[in-house]
């Protein structure tokens, strides 16, 4: 128990640092991976080498030098070129459906699993076939202890009988 608590504290401490330190970047590379080239290639700006991509990168460089944040630059390009310039679909309008679907599916699936996985009664062991029988059944510590206690009790009873017979 102590080990688990200690592990938990260390885990939180270790992971908290990078999460806290996460800062919004406004480097050119962050922008060129967030925006799409509008030449029709459908590629991320970082990967396209055409003149349109070079022009867009020049504009981005200027805006970074002007001190604009990543969100401001993205908003400006979105206004200029439309949603088509965004690599990541916005989390609004029709695109919100795209973002919500996985979450809704996950929640619904978890509820279904919860309802179905509730163990109502033990499954008859005789009806279990391979591959579950093939797989090494995990030895449960509690099971072993219970089995050991049962055999110990049997042994003690037999021992008592033998002792009584000897007398």
């Amino acid at each position, binding site marked *: 128990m102590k*080990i*688990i608590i200690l*592990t938990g504290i*260390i*885990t939180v401490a*270790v*992971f908290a*640092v*990078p*999460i806290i*330190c*996460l800062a919004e970047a406004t480097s050119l590379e962050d922008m060129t*991976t*967030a925006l*799409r080239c509008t030449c029709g290639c*459908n*590629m*991320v700006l970082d*990967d396209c*080498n055409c003149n349109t991509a070079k022009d867009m990168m020049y504009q981005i460089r200027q805006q970074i030098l002007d001190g604009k944040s990543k969100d401001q630059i993205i908003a400006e390009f979105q206004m200029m070129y439309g*949603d*088509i310039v*965004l*690599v*990541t*679909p916005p989390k609004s309008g*029709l*695109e919100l459906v*795209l*973002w919500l*679907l*996985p979450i809704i*599916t*996950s929640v619904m*699936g*978890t509820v279904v*699993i*919860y309802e*179905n*996985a*509730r*163990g109502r*009664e*033990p*499954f008859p062991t005789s*009806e*279990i*076939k*391979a*591959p*579950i*029988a*093939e*797989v*090494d*059944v*995990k030895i*449960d*510590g*509690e099971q072993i202890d219970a089995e050991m206690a049962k055999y110990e009790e049997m042994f003690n009873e037999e021992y008592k009988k033998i002792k009584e017979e000897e007398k």
Partner: protein
Amino acid sequence: MIGYICLLIAIISAVSAALLYVVGIIKKQPRFLFGGRMGIGITLIEVTIASVWLLYLLISRDFQTAYVASYTSKDLSLLYTISAFWAGMEGSLLLWTWMLSIFATMVILPHRKNEKLTPYVGLILVIIIAFLLSVLVFASNPFTELSYRPSDGYGLNPLLQDLGMMFHPPTLFVGYAGFAVPFAFAMAGLWTKKDDWIYHIRRWTLFSWLFLGFGIFLGGWWSYHVLGWGGYWAWDPIENASLIPWLLASAFLHSVMIQEGKGGMKVWNMLLIIFTFLAVFFATFLTRSGIISSVHAFAQSPVGGVFLIFILLTFFACIGLVVLRLKTLATRNIFEAYLSRETSFLFNNLIFVVLTFIVFSGTVFPLLSEVIRGYQLSVGPGFYNESFLPLALILVLLMGVCILIAWRKASLVSLKKNAVYPIVSSVVSASVFFLLGVRDFPGMAVVFVSTFISLAIGLEFYRVANAEGNARGLNFLRGLGSSIKRNRRKFGGQIIHISIVLMLIGVAGSTLYENAKMFTIDVGETYAADSYIFTFEGFSQHTENNRAATVANLDISFNGKETQRFSPTIYYYLREETFIRSPHISGSMLQDVYVVLQDYVLPQGTQGGEATFTVKTIPLINLIWISMIVMGIGTIIAMSSERKR
């Protein structure tokens, strides 16, 4: 004409085989079933002759055949001329039909083994083959002849003139064709109300899953070393479409174990195999219809519409049959506890399905946006990076957690006991990497998950090997060998899981810690950046078969160590009048150095010339290719196990 005639005979024999099977099944007459088997055999022979004929036409450069003229030329090397077989829509469809005919024959040949199911399996497979043949014969004939004989062909797309072209499409099509077999067995089992279909499809499913996975990996490898952008996966719609059946098949491979062991999840497994099969045709529909713009898509064609109709008809027929057989598929509740390996498999399946959903919705979203807004808005990597990757990481973590939980019912006590060493070691590992400079959350999460799973699997191997050794009086290594031999399916699966860990580390390293620098440098000059020194030694030019090459020689040294020469090239394809950049990649297990020649000005008179390079350092990317090999080894071991009923 020979090829087309063979295809005509093939479709006649396929349709005849289907009719013979139907009569044989209804009337329970073995001679009609024999006729059906013969029909499949004749179909295979005819499709083989047609395929060999196409190969002959390609190699002999018969440019009067439109397909040969479209994809080859006199100056195309023999290797790429052969690969032109599957370069176009018609040829790739013929390849798929050929593969499926081979597999159908392999399945129905040992008919006595599965006498009750084989007629239905044969019927379903021959219907699918007949459909593909009808598309070939009526809409996508690879043997169409031109009214004149051109003196030369148009040649193969320069991007396809690579070793990857030899292997990537055929492996994909083997996977695609292979999934028809478990589907046919599933439908046969559903119709005949027999559950033993699952025991006949394990190796077929693994085989198809492996080849489809290989095909996807090879596509990534090809993209990496050819396209010059240093990446291997762009979330392109066609790439996504090949991933969907692979994800669904992965879910099926796990959940089928529960049906084998306890007879549960029958409806779920049936739906998984149906949707895996439909996803294969969906991928084909996307590629051949051209309705979504993609570098992989063929031009727009009515063939896409035919595939869509096939998908819809198959969907309604299969779902209808499932509904009809719901009573047969109903089972008692097989779950005995929340904390059990069965429940963890449910979560495994849930995550696979949600991942499939993410990929599918991102892929078809452009169509939805076109219907609603009037233009296609394609979904870029940002969406998948934020929604797919975190969930994939959780799925990988679940791989390790599953091993620690017992079948049927596990106790928290035993789970804690089994989990403490992996968790503590993972935290220590993450802390060590933090001190070494891995300070970002995704990187540390990958370190934690990788260590956790590796230890969980390692401890499992250790425990079992120890127990086996003790029970049989063997040393540890012999105990390990003996336990692997006795339980190849389980250990093959764990080796596959190890390959996933390697892939995870490779993807994380190459994505999170890639460094790129673009610079322009004159001939003879030196440029220094980030402990690297670049010296541009100059150009060399030469002409090959069908292209002219301009090579830029760049010497790179790191931290004053030995200099290495990189020679990235820009090829100019004479016939197509296209430039293709060919990167120079060199590296080790830990890191690749990837150099691309972006642009150049050749020396003129006294002016020395200049070149623009992009240099990338890509850590750990080679682990991805290694993971492919490990996955293959694990799958072969898993496939080699004896089937137990």
